[in-house]
């Protein structure tokens, strides 16, 4: 398989998942889409290195997340123009995710949506396994408290 074909196959196989993960991380469909696209462009620029990484998909996800969380430019937005995002049932989840600190949000999405191992998340984020587990626990507790469903019952709605 040629280099381009290799990249194209990778893109086709993973881009929807990364988009999904970025949406969970940002709660903003447009931002998720733009950051995902840009991350794949960057992956192509460094494809020789990215393609042999343990998880090229994790590389793209973390790159997209770094782009999405860039706070260098303060964007003043009106409330009604903030996002093109969730309505209905998912709105509660998106809102709950956005209450989490960024690092907690990343680990909960990487672990429970992307299925990444805790050790891999630690490596991706430059933290230890213990720190990832700590963030996971805090994120779980916060979500259990906020989300109005059976998860709160399971934990008694308490923070950990």
């Amino acid at each position, binding site marked *: 398989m040629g280099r*381009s074909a290799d*990249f194209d196959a990778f*893109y*086709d196989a993973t*881009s929807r998942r990364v*988009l999904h993960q970025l*949406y969970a991380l940002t709660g903003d469909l*447009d*931002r998720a*889409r*733009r*950051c*995902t*696209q*840009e991350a*794949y*462009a*960057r*992956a*192509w*620029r460094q494809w020789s*290195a990215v393609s042999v*990484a*343990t998880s090229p998909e994790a590389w793209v996800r973390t*790159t997209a997340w770094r*782009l*999405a969380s*860039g706070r*260098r*430019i*303060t*964007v*003043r937005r*009106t409330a*009604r123009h903030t*996002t*093109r995002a*969730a309505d209905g049932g*998912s709105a509660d*989840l*998106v809102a709950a995710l956005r209450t989490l600190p960024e*690092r907690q949000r990343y680990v909960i999405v990487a672990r*429970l949506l992307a299925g990444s191992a805790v*050790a891999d998340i*630690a*490596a991706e984020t*430059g933290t*230890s396994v213990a*720190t990832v587990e700590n963030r996971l*626990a805090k994120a*779980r*507790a916060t*979500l*259990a408290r906020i989300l109005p*469903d*059976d*998860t709160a019952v*399971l*934990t008694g709605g308490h923070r*950990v």
Partner: protein
Amino acid sequence: MSDSHDDSLSRRLSSLETDLAGISLSGPAAARRRAAQRTRHQVTGGVLAGVAAVALGVFAISPPDFVASPEPVGPVTDSPTTGPTTPSEPPSTPPVEPTPDPSETGSPDGGGQNGSTGNDGTSSLMVPPDALLTLDDVITETSEGWAEAGAGDSWLPCVPGIPSDGVGIAFESAYGSRFEQVVDPIAGGAEDRLEDLRAELTECAESGDDFHLVQVWSLSGVGDGGYLIVWNGPPTTPDTATYVTASLVRTGDFVSAVFHGGPGQDYNAPAQPRQAVLSAERLCRAMGSECPASPEQERLYPEPVSDVDGWLTIDDLAEVGLTALTEGSEVMDSGDAGGATDYGFVGLERDPFADGAESLEQRTYTDPLEPGGQVVNQLRATFPDAETARAHHDALAAAAEQPTQPGDVVENTGSISGAGYHGTVWVLSNTEFGTSWLYGAAVSGNVVTVVYYGLIDDELSPDQMSHLLELAAQRIGG
């Protein structure tokens, strides 16, 4: 926490996929094109021009931002972040100041500097017809289809009409975007006119509930300077507002204003100077001269956070070679939402609070033109006394010598010491993930500071990090 809790959360996260219905990505070929375009710009800038790299911004209003197509044709320009670029046609000769000669006479279609003497004895100028951007220019610049439209009476918010002596052009796209340029000749008053225009636009953009000023940048190295201004305003819909980018540039006695706007939802990257460069080049060429075209931009709004006592300064970062990092964040305390509760880095695992820290604060230093790019993290842990701080520092440094994560290799690259402070610098590499970090910790008085930086290439050496840590240590105490 139970597995069923995780299962429930996992199911709910998976269900977010339903919100993605109708959202399509532009495809792998578009990603490769975008990457290639970025690389081409970098090569052009580095080899041919040798000018300062200026990041491309995002005009988040173009249709591809919210009308997804499987494989858009041509360069993709809706990136939320940026890559460096330079003007495609750098000046090959030293900049020449266009200085229209009021005594020279000519006709509007003469292609030169046209002037006449008014009744009041002052000079009036005329704009050469080929000083304006053309339809082809705009199509090439935006990768969008446009058709000519009536100039003046713009529906873009805050965009002024054409002055009596000025000339203008306008184009509109099928996606509801509008592009227009006005060139205004003011003999002897162009500098004031530029400032007035900036004031007029920013005042309008801050004039009411439906108007929002987004960014203001000063622009140098293009013509005789200018501004990039971004705002949004009416017409609005429940999902969109009208976003406008103004590229204002003065060239001698002429002021060119390019307005590019349309419906959008966000604008989260630096305004880009390309249209200012293009309009200045066109104006200068029409007058038979050449303009500077090495854009450098400095953000005026939102106003950057200035240096903070006790923390690294922007000059410190430049001193060690991190010249692109020109913006420091607000200082965040561990009690702030999202504030650090530990050093947040695998090489510095020791918990400052467990060792008696009273507070932990964090500041980041970034490149305003490259969101998601280089970043220096600095944290300061404050202890009740110097002895406790030293004990924590020594324990932190001892722990830092022992990597805790499989695959990590830590190398001590040296120590620093000076009047009242000492510290150590390390490099942590993980060959499996291809990551490398330079970091250090130092103590001075009752404060321990740590600094860490994830290498993108080889842009920072251990020696430079040592110097940076030394500066950080010297800054402790203000």
